[in-house]
């Protein structure tokens, strides 16, 4: 199957080389860097190294970056698209496990999860993760241990959903939508690193806003997604 790795990058000049090298060295899949109009030299670094890069003329956020990657995957006939962070937290060697789940037909969406086998630690961040897990459980009866993981593989059906519905984001609420549409979601144990350079976009206020958005979307919007009839 044709696999595309989508690497969204915003101001990642220090991390992007390492990420792409990791992807090229440890996988045989195609990749595309989506440069979300970075203010630093991310684009120059990509060009210098001859990376396959899509460059947005205006900054539109992570969601738009992933949506652009999905459009690219759709137009170029890819069967699987993987969302992979450009900040060096994800390790490409785990991607083949995600792809395997989809290739074998076990899942439409495979998530690289930190907590399938390992315990979730008790921190503020993980409290958010737990709450979202609970919300997903209440709405879909499905246990997702690491809903906020940014490492997800989508099959062709999910790619098509992304291309045709601009309201879908690369966030946990989309998982609820996909589950309601009778798609299978499977988690695969992976390890993630702490980021080395640059800063995470999560500040306390943003976290609260994020949680509010997620709860609103999961309970009031995605929860009411019309179920696809079986058979």
């Amino acid at each position, binding site marked *: 199957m044709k696999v595309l790795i989508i690497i969204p990058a915003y101001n990642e000049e220090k991390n992007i080389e390492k990420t792409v090298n990791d992807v090229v060295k440890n996988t045989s899949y195609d990749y595309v860097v989506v440069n979300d109009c970075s203010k630093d030299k991310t684009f120059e670094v990509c060009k210098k190294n001859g990376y396959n890069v*899509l*460059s*947005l003329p205006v900054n539109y956020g992570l969601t738009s970056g992933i949506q652009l990657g999905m459009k690219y995957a759709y137009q170029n006939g890819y069967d699987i698209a993987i969302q992979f962070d450009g900040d060096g937290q994800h390790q490409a060697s785990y991607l083949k496990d995600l792809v395997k789940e989809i290739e074998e037909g076990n899942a439409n969406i495979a998530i690289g999860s930190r907590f399938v086998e390992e315990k979730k630690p008790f921190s503020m961040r993980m409290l958010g993760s737990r709450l979202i897990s609970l919300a997903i459980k209440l709405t879909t009866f499905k246990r997702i241990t690491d809903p906020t993981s940014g490492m997800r593989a989508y099959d062709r059906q999910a790619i098509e959903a992304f291309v045709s519905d601009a309201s879908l984001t690369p966030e946990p609420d989309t998982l609820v939508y996909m589950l309601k549409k009778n798609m299978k979601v499977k988690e695969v144990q992976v390890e993630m690193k702490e980021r080395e350079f640059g800063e995470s976009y999560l500040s306390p206020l943003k976290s609260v806003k994020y949680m509010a958005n997620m709860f609103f979307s999961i309970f009031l919007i995605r929860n009411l997604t019309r179920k696809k009839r079986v058979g």
Partner: protein
Amino acid sequence: MSVTLRAILIVSSIISCILCIKKIKQAKLKVENAIVWMLGSFLLIFMSIFSGVVEWCATGLGFEAPVNFVFVIVIAFLLIEVYLNNLKITELNEKIKDIAHHIAINEHENDEEKEKNNG
């Protein structure tokens, strides 16, 4: 309704109509957008001139004072306008995003073509 209030409503409505027409002439406002404001102004003028109608409606609906009825109409009108504006902003936002995506994909194709020609 007091005469003062009616006078204020009429004057402000006329001013807003004049502003709308001026902006249309300067091409800073589209006719289809201005029409809503004009209609709103006409409604206010109508309510000021025929204040008997307002009083009749207000008593019928159980408002304590006719002026409250005027306020309710104005607030409802504004809320609907804000809502429609919000829809419009979202639509424009999506359109700009689509254009940005289109540009990114096009540039990528152009680059690939250039590389092919050079290689």
